[in-house]
């Protein structure tokens, strides 16, 4: 079995994000980069499946040379191969999906697994775009995976509950928080990973379909009217809630 895990490198969620002068990008200085939290569930699930079914796992990311850090982490966790599709381009979800699909056409994985969205651009579009490009079924926001005979039974989240979906390989799964508990890489493996080879391949350009016009810091602040912690204050608060 061949598994392709797609990983995105994103700013740590506590990082301070400031737009650059050009207003089309962010200032990367001083930002700590991590593996997209949702992709951690994808890596872990791939490792669990590989342990059961003798599968080989390839981790792939689209990005610049600095993406080596997240790929080394993936290798330290136990993926067998690491690939960087080298591109300085940022935030073009369609182009990223296209390059993943092109790689998948050559690799022919049985399973493609990735996080439901990346916490930088939050487009949630890559899994479905890949599904359309490869004509392989997608089950998204998956919180439980079971292999039953030759079939896959997947639990996915919807607004007010869950659905159980049956499908078969090859398929694409996008992972939801709670699917598993991602492991931490062990120090000996981290050291070994430093010496492993990461394959670098060329990025294929596609037409740019969307355009960024402006980035500004979102001012989340509101005019907080404070009420005192008295009966009168509580009444005021209730009044404001009920209106």
């Amino acid at each position, binding site marked *: 079995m061949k598994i392709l895990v797609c990983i995105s490198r994103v700013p740590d969620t506590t990082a301070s994000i400031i737009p650059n002068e050009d207003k089309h990008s962010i200032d990367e200085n001083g930002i700590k980069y991590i593996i997209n939290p949702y992709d951690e569930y994808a890596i872990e699930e791939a490792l669990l499946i590989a342990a059961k079914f003798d599968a080989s796992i390839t981790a792939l990311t689209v990005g610049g040379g600095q993406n080596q850090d997240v790929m080394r982490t993936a290798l330290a966790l136990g993926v067998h191969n690491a690939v960087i599709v080298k591109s300085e381009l940022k935030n073009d979800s369609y182009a990223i999906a296209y390059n993943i699909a092109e790689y998948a056409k050559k690799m022919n994985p049985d399973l493609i697994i990735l996080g439901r969205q990346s916490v930088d651009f939050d487009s949630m579009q890559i899994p479905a775009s890949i599904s359309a490009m490869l004509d392989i079924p997608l089950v998204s926001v998956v919180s439980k995976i079971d292999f039953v005979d030759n079939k896959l039974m997947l639990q996915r989240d919807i607004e007010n509950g869950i659905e159980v979906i049956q499908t078969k390989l090859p398929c694409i799964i996008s992972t939801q928080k709670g699917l598993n508990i991602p492991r931490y890489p062990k120090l000996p493996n981290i050291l070994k990973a430093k010496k492993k080879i990461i394959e670098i391949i060329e990025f294929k350009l596609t037409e740019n379909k969307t*355009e960024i016009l402006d980035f500004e810091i979102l001012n989340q602040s*509101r005019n907080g009217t404070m009420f005192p912690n008295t*009966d009168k204050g509580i009444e005021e608060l209730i009044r404001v809630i009920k209106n």
Partner: protein
Amino acid sequence: MLREKYMKNVLLYLETEEGYLSKSSKELIVTASNIFKNEEYNLMACTINAKETNNIKEIAPYRIKKYFRIQHQLLENYSIKSISYSIRELCVSENIDIIIFATTAKEMELAPYIATILNAGYLADCVSLEFKTNLLIAKRHIYGGKILAQMQIKTEKQVYSLRVNSTRVDPTRVDSTEKQEVNNNINLENINFIPQLSDIKNDSIVVETKLDKSRLNISDANIVVSGGKGMQEANNFKHIEILAEKLNGAVGASRAVVDAGWRPQSEQVGQTGKTISPNIYIALGISGAIQHVAGISTSKKIIAINKDENAPIFSMCDYGIVADILEILPKINKMI
């Protein structure tokens, strides 16, 4: 000599639940009617295998000119591929330029799939869509809600998913100057559309749907009462459940509380939980970390109670009280 303007056709995808328009679909109709007021835009709508009569009544008061009831046996069981190719057939036959979805779990997979097979640009989860002169500009929250991005689609065919606000769907919310014309929309064409879907096989099937109907879910509720680590222990959430019930609202939770196992993942609000947009969001014992606020920033009213007067939530709320949540909450429940 009269010259015909080039009209653009906008299609609204209306999700249904058990055959009837969902709350988010109704909100999408109102929102889209307010965006596409320009006469150059024809607003249309479609549903998949919906029951007929009720849906028409809800669409008729707005600016929608055509309503397509897409029907096909292959669409009986939800399939991203079948729905997407059905809509593509409709788009080709009706010359649709723009398709708009609401931000719901299923639409977030349909929208990009359809955009890909139509070769259309796609912008997801837009918090607003507005015309600036003749250009359609979308605003999106990115980097966990820290940055507001203004973006536009460069291709002719365009797909958007919109974060619709949870408000009471009200015909008067459509611009009042147009209300008269809108109420007399007797020109709504109701059309059955049967796609061919040749060579399409469903490759995955929904074998079971488990809806938690006992609890109001946070994505749909008008009021969400949410608790954080300040609640001290899982048991204390019973006060929140009581308040939520009195207000006809849903119970939400911060990430810390879900990670601690006090509340289920389905209640988590925030960057790795759900992004919601209720009328009223009440944050109890929640400090207001940016990842949490990212999930509620488009809420109409945010109310916070926390015993720490320096909690970040207080600069991000509309109303607040500094108080020990375990002392004040029972009082509120008594007085409300």
